[in-house]
């Protein structure tokens, strides 16, 4: 199929985002559409699947097929879609609450299952949509939510470490404040054959104004990354400050996809019941 050269903005739906001005998710939207343009994806052959949260509003703003599902189930819906329609480029997206709290189990198993799709988590260490409660990635001493008035007191969830332990073959960290690099990461993630996980530090101006400091704290990862050695990757992730961007780990594993053979007829199958 010949692909007319589309620009990033051609991948935007024109529906105006309800996000707060200044929200990091805008940059993710922009980087993702740039990545799509760069890859020359045919719009109708792409589906963006999400859960519920501010971040999960993403699909509506993109002019591809989209599915805005229920809280925590983006990866499940995306996996079903990809299993049934291997021809599509499937991108799952959502927030840290959606993906790591209620959706944690699907995250584990999607990493393991290694279907060919990208998963973008816009991590703002907070539940934006429900007014600022602590999420799994929130640091234990953040005490600005009334639901956890002394902070959660629980060490925060390390998405890259979990993804690695669960068997993901592509793990990257991006930052909404570095949209060009983010575009590159997303391109690589979409191109990676298998499950590609991108954690995007995407600040919430409304409930986490402190995240404006991320501009100073985020830095490119130092080492000679990506590595394809899981032990090294584990070391780097454990030792890191969680603010280093880049592809951390990239390794090709067999991609799981059900075989869609067609070598029988229903009539034939039904014969088995004859005496």
């Amino acid at each position, binding site marked *: 199929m010949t692909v007319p050269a589309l*620009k*990033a*903005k051609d991948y935007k739906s024109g529906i*105006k*985002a*309800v*996000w*707060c*001005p*200044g929200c*990091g998710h*805008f*940059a993710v939207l*922009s980087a993702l559409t*740039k*990545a799509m343009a*760069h890859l020359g994806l045919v719009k109708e052959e792409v589906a963006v699947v999400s859960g*519920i*949260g501010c971040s999960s509003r993403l699909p509506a703003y993109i002019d591809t097929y989209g599915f805005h599902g229920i809280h925590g189930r983006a990866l499940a819906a995306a996996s079903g879609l990809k299993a049934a329609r291997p021809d599509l480029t499937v991108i799952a997206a959502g927030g840290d609450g959606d993906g790591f709290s209620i959706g944690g189990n699907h995250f584990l198993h999607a990493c393991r299952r290694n279907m060919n799709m990208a998963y973008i988590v816009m991590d703002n260490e907070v539940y934006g*949509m*429900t*007014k600022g409660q602590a999420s799994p990635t929130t640091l234990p001493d953040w005490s600005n939510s009334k639901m956890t008035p002394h902070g959660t007191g629980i060490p925060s969830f390390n998405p890259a470490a979990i993804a690695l332990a669960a068997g993901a073959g592509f793990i990257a960290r991006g930052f*909404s*404040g*570095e*949209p*060009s*690099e983010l*575009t*590159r990461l997303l*391109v690589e993630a979409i191109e990676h054959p298998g499950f590609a996980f991108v954690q995007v530090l995407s*600040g919430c*101006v*409304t409930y986490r104004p402190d995240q*404006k400091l991320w*501009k100073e704290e985020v830095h490119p990862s130092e080492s000679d990354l990506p590595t394809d050695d899981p032990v090294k990757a584990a070391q780097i992730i454990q030792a890191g400050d969680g603010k280093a961007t880049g592809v951390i780990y990239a390794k090709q594993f067999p991609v799981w996809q059900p075989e869609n053979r067609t070598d029988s007829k229903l009539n034939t199958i039904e014969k088995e019941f004859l005496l």
Partner: protein
Amino acid sequence: MSEAETVTIESVEEFLVHAMELEEASYEHYEELADTMEVHNNLEVAELFRKLANYSRLHAEEVHQRAANLALPTITPWDFKWKCPSAPEAFCMDDADYLMSSTKAMEIALFNEIRGRDFYQQVADNSSSEAVKKLAIEMVEEENWHVEMLREWQASMQEEQPQEDLDPPNMPE
């Protein structure tokens, strides 16, 4: 941008691709700001961003016309030769606030325009190609004109301090 290392662009084609990306990104960025301001009912500022978007669009068209008969190279989004995290005139997102005043919006615009100008200036300073230099200087001049115009607007505006929104946020889902 000013702190960045030297940028060298040696062909007109490469330069035009940069200029095009810069202006288009700027256009889209202002459009997006205008949209969100509209969504958030900050109509004055929305209108201002819309105006700026329009300028950037015109600018981008100009660059397009210049490039009309050239075979332009493709540059991947992350290989542009600016050192800032995105196109020079499309930054400062997390400074955006739905209550921002027109003067604050002007500040953002000026920051962007100046950064754009500085980019062109660096190209002009460092390129060994005369053709590139010439084009770059033209762009610098245009951007300078932009900057001047923005400064004039700014001067004509009343310094406004945005008021804190006393209402609590909503919970859409």
